[in-house]
């Protein structure tokens, strides 16, 4: 994985000192909260309902054991002994003291981490495929491209006060594990005539006005990528709406102009920028790529796995995926224990994951946008030992992509924007469907919960989505069906009137019962929904 050189380290260290100075000015009263707010937000520090929340960047979701141990140490030293992995592959600490934040950032910089641009109206953490470098279906590892974008977007002088936040995702596979089409700009690395380049999609997003992105360019060669993206951002920075923050994302601009007209304006801007020759040479991409060279995989390993322990076999079938290298596998550690808080991990669990990565996965971990953690390169022969350790740590839930593998935002338990709680609903659903056989019978079912229309819990992209709203002072939950953030991207639709907390769990049981009754061979929940349509589901729920 990428390692800082003296320049990267110097930039992050300077940022720590800058923030130390800003916090000191705030604590002394030289800065008002209003003046301080944009500065703290550029460092991922939010003021939530009960305390400050610090969001730490995990670029494209990749981290090593030492970095994970540092997150554990921060959880223990400055928080309440746990952290929360997010849908942008980052981690949040929810109980932070303002005065501690410069020290936390200083601790992070010792392991090449930071909280730069994890909030604010700037280019956010670049997300990517959690199976990058391991997936059998990728044309190349997308992370060198993501790292190139990380550096280009860090403290970009022109794009730090955009109309609104800006999210990139980069993938390089047929399967979309990063919700690429629901990003402000989504990039898919493809191959043409033996050369890799970027297929560019713009104007996707969730929030109050969910939209699937439009393809604006079929192939951008590496040498044109940064000027092309600079052009995309410049058109947005100049013409994105600034009169209404709810209409300020690029999706509104692309929709208002039409994707073709937006693409034409980008081309025009690109022609000017390209001619200026402002961009790094190929040697810089090659330097970055060298850090992502495949680890020293052993060859001629056996693909056999001893399945005699039935509990292990269940986990193996559910949480382990095919690796490109024979003899290896990709193992996903579920952070969704039944009754737990989706995405939370304790300091001790983080240390267990760090130790497993160091011992069994070439010292690499990945955070997924579904709020789980991946050991990307495990020898098949080691899977049983890995599973035993995970089980002791309460991390061996065998529910990847099943109904209890729920994405949920922090909701009204933490968030100052939320209208309703998300966590208790997630817990009730997971508890209702706790039986492993029943979950397995329901198959792939992506359930996503947001506590308000800002959609941090990706409810628009759920096969089943839940949106918490405030109805005359009481929490009310709307049910949505038919969304997907994957390669079969689609936006979920609201079924009808909402429910209370228990009612929504009952409604989910009704729609899953209907699915079991109606499905044909091999159909997932979302396939059946697409085939038979909303009316049948409405009838089952409200009829």
């Amino acid at each position, binding site marked *: 994985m990428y390692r800082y050189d003296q320049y990267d380290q110097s930039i992050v260290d300077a940022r720590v000192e800058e923030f130390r100075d800003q916090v000191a000015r705030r604590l002394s009263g030289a800065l008002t909260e209003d003046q301080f707010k*944009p500065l703290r937000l550029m460092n991922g520090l939010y003021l939530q309902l009960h305390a400050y929340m610090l969001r730490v960047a995990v670029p494209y979701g990749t981290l090593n054991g030492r970095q994970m141990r540092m997150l554990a140490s921060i959880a223990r030293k400055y928080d309440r002994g746990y952290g929360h992995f997010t849908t942008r592959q980052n981690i949040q600490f929810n109980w932070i003291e303002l005065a501690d934040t410069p020290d936390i950032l200083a601790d992070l910089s010792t392991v090449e981490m930071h909280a730069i641009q994890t909030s604010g*109206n700037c280019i956010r953490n670049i997300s990517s495929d959690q199976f990058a470098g391991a997936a059998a279906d990728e044309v190349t590892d997308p992370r060198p491209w993501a790292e190139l974008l990380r550096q*280009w977007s860090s403290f*970009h002088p022109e794009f*730090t006060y955009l109309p609104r936040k800006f999210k990139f995702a980069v993938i390089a596979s047929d399967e979309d594990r990063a919700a690429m089409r629901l990003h402000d700009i989504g990039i898919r690395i493809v191959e043409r005539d033996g050369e890799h380049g970027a297929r560019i999609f713009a104007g996707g997003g969730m929030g109050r006005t969910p939209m699937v992105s439009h393809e604006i360019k079929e192939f951008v060669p590496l040498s044109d990528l940064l000027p092309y993206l600079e052009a995309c951002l410049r058109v947005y920075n100049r013409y994105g709406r600034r009169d209404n923050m709810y209409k300020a994302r690029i999706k509104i601009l692309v929709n208002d102009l039409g994707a073709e007209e937006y693409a034409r304006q980008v081309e025009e801007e690109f022609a000017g920028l390209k001619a200026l020759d402002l961009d790094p040479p190929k040697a810089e991409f090659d330097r970055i790529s060298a850090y992502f060279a495949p680890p020293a995989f052993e060859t001629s390993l056996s693909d056999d796995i001893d399945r005699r322990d039935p509990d292990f076999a269940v986990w193996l079938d559910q949480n382990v995926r095919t690796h490109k290298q024979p003899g290896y596998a990709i193992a996903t550690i579920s952070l969704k224990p039944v009754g737990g808080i989706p995405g939370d991990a304790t300091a001790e669990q983080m240390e267990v994951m760090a130790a497993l990565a160091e011992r069994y996965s070439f010292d690499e971990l990945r955070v997924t946008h579904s709020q789980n953690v991946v050991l990307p390169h495990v020898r098949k022969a080691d899977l049983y030992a890995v599973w035993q350790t995970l089980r002791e740590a309460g991390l061996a839930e065998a529910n990847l992509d099943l109904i209890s593998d729920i994405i949920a935002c922090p909701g009204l338990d933490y968030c100052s924007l939320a209208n309703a709680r998300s966590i208790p609903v997630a817990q009730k659903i997971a508890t209702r469907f706790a039986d492993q056989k029943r979950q397995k019978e329901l198959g792939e079912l992506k359930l996503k919960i947001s506590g308000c229309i800002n959609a941090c819990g990706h409810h628009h992209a759920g096969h089943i989505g839940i949106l918490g709203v405030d109805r005359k002072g009481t929490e009310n939950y709307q049910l949505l069906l038919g969304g997907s953030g994957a390669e079969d991207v689609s936006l979920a639709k609201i079924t009808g009137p909402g429910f209370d907390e228990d009612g929504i769990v009952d409604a989910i049981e009704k729609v899953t019962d209907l699915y079991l009754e109606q499905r044909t061979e091999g159909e997932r929940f979302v396939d059946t929904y697409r085939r038979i349509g909303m009316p049948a589901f409405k009838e089952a729920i409200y009829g």
Partner: protein
Amino acid sequence: MADLLHYREDGPHEEPAVTLDAFLDQSNATAVRLESDEDARALLPYLDRLTLIEISFPTFKDGRGYSAARILREAGYIGELRAQGDVLVDQIPLMRRCGFDSFHPQAEVDRKALAAALERQEYVYQRAADARQPVWKLRHG
């Protein structure tokens, strides 16, 4: 209005800037003011005879002026480029990178904090409108 901050060899341009409409209507004015929603490219035919372009920042959150500045510098404008309005200390280093070389903030700027902010980052990742070399240039020559 606070003091003018000026980072040019020549002195600040003293004549008042005219609006873009007034400039395009007449004019032999040499100083023009762009509101944040006005198109900097309207000035491209006249860059040779302009000595001051003032760009308005009605609120610090309105970042359109950063793009306007780069567009003017990319087109070869070498006169004074002034940021006026809600311009905050911690924004000035970024504005310098986009080509601004004078600042007329509406509120007084803490000079000590500004000096520290301008010195703080020894390295930058991108080439922009200033003369700073990006780290990739330092890495590869």
